[in-house]
């Protein structure tokens, strides 16, 4: 087996995944370098979530290999044979990867602060005092220092997602995975979450972001990867993929996204007109 290039933080080679007879990923190759921001685009059902879940071992690989930080995910090679990793080893690998979910998945019985210190205290075993200090800084980073004592149910969706980002960051992960972090949010709350992510990107955080926010992808991504039906169709710089795509499937997808955005914009314009008319 070819050893991974040490420069890559993530290297996925010929990754396949089937659920029973349903082949969801059919040979994905993807590399992510330290400090890179990679945006994954693609129509719903193309396997983006599944790919992120494979990296974080919430699903097991059917075929191919994924290395994170030079370590094989889920399996290890001993004396020329592949062995499944133990649960403890998998947990250790997971603790190095931060994950942000579409539906936040904050722990509802814990305050924002408790959510953020949970893993540092109960996984890493650092003292509560130290964890709290770190958490305060992280909550400040996501602009929620004044919400530390709030329960998730007392926060807006955008605030919850920002706490979820802080919670993932608290483990000081080498890699952050975002699965449509703004899809479940009201439009007016999308910006605050993307703003936090922009800040992380600027600080050099390595991120894989599944998103439908084309503006964010263009502005923040170092690379854009377009997936469809379980394969990578096209990848490259944001300008190449988003403005001058070579593949027909990419064009179709972008056209559809654009139409949707235009329809929304049109709706907004009409709404604005109606409001104007009402005012005058």
């Amino acid at each position: 087996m070819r050893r991974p290039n040490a420069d890559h933080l993530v290297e996925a080679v010929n990754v396949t995944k089937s659920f029973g007879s349903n082949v969801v990923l059919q040979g994905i190759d993807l590399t992510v370098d330290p400090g890179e921001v990679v945006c994954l685009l693609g129509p719903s059902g193309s396997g983006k979530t599944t790919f992120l879940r494979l990296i974080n071992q919430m699903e097991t690989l059917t075929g191919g290999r994924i290395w994170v930080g030079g370590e094989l995910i889920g399996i290890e090679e001993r004396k020329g044979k592949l062995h499944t990793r133990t649960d403890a080893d998998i947990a250790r690998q997971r603790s190095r990867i931060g994950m942000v979910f579409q539906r936040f998945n904050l722990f509802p019985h814990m305050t924002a602060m408790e959510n953020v210190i949970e893993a540092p205290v109960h996984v890493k075993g650092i003292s509560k005092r130290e964890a709290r200090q770190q958490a305060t800084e992280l909550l400040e980073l996501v602009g929620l220092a004044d919400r530390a004592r709030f329960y998730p149910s007392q926060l807006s969706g955008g605030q919850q997602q920002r706490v979820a980002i802080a919670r993932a960051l608290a483990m000081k992960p080498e890699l952050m995975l975002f699965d449509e972090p703004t899809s479940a949010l009201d439009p007016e709350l999308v910006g605050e979450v993307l703003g936090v992510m922009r800040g992380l990107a600027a600080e050099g955080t390595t991120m894989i972001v599944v998103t439908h926010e084309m503006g964010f992808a263009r502005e923040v991504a170092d690379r854009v990867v377009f997936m469809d039906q379980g394969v990578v169709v096209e990848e490259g710089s944001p300008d190449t993929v988003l403005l001058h795509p070579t593949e027909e499937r990419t064009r179709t997808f972008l056209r559809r996204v654009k139409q949707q955005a235009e329809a929304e914009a049109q709706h907004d314009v009409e709404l604005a007109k109606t409001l104007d008319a009402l005012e005058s």
Partner: protein
Amino acid sequence: MSTSSGSDGERPGLINAVPVRHYGRWVAVAVIVLLLLMLLNMLIFNPVFDWPFVLEVMNQTPVIEGLLKGTLLVTVFTMIVGVLGGVVLAVMRLSDNPVLRWVSWAYTWFFRSIPRIVLLTIMGAGMGLIFRDGLSLGIPFDWKIIEWLGLSGDWRFATLDANTLFSGFVGAVIGLGASEAAYMAEIARAGILSVDKGQSEAAQALGMSRWKAMRRVVLPQAMRVIVPPTGNETIAMMKDTSLLIALPLTAELFYQVGAIGSRTYQILPSYLAAVVYYLLITSVLMVGQSYLERHFGRGFGTTVKSDKAQAEIGLMAGSAH
């Protein structure tokens, strides 16, 4: 506004309507008050309710001892055994391992099928016969292995007498606890299943082991669903301690008041002493349950709609800590 009846004619003002009269309600109240008066009259003036004697029975040392030991302490210990056992059974039932799933199912099936009084009677009468040589901790099938090897003696570290183990206080806790675990398993399972799968996924994504995610994230949320029926189970268990004479365990409230009743021929007032105690304990348990429900309900039940309401709730939450 032709039908307006306001004083200044044009715009409708304060509403001062005659409310609907709920005559039915008043009739119901009257009937209930009447029935309560009749009940009170009976309780106070019917000589059969010999309250001074009831108080006297309640104050007897064996009765108080029975209440503390056979009723309260057995309830506490059985519920500890039952809840822990139930959670373990529920986790087994939900595990990936088919053997564990089957064992859990079979256990629940067995203990749910046996009436408690039957279980206790058989335990008291039968266990001494089944385990004639007592219960030992040692190497399984040691006698057979020793026989094969042509040796003598045994490989047992400790032996307990089955009669002491399965009768009396320990027997009560084992019997009722084993039975309770079967019911608690169903309750705990429903509780665990009520928690969104994303919760344990998020916990495991942070590097928690499956068991730690269960303990720190899933079970505390499951408690919200588990606590109310567990309160009912505790109250039911407290009442089922009155079956313990089947074991037999005599240091128990119901048996003790019964004994006084048959000795003094004051049957009804004696049993009333037990009723008063059962009422008192249940009241205390209900208060405890509401505290537990509030504790495990934290972070839930506030659905925030407007920003203003949110800010208000936020202020409350901020100052409550």
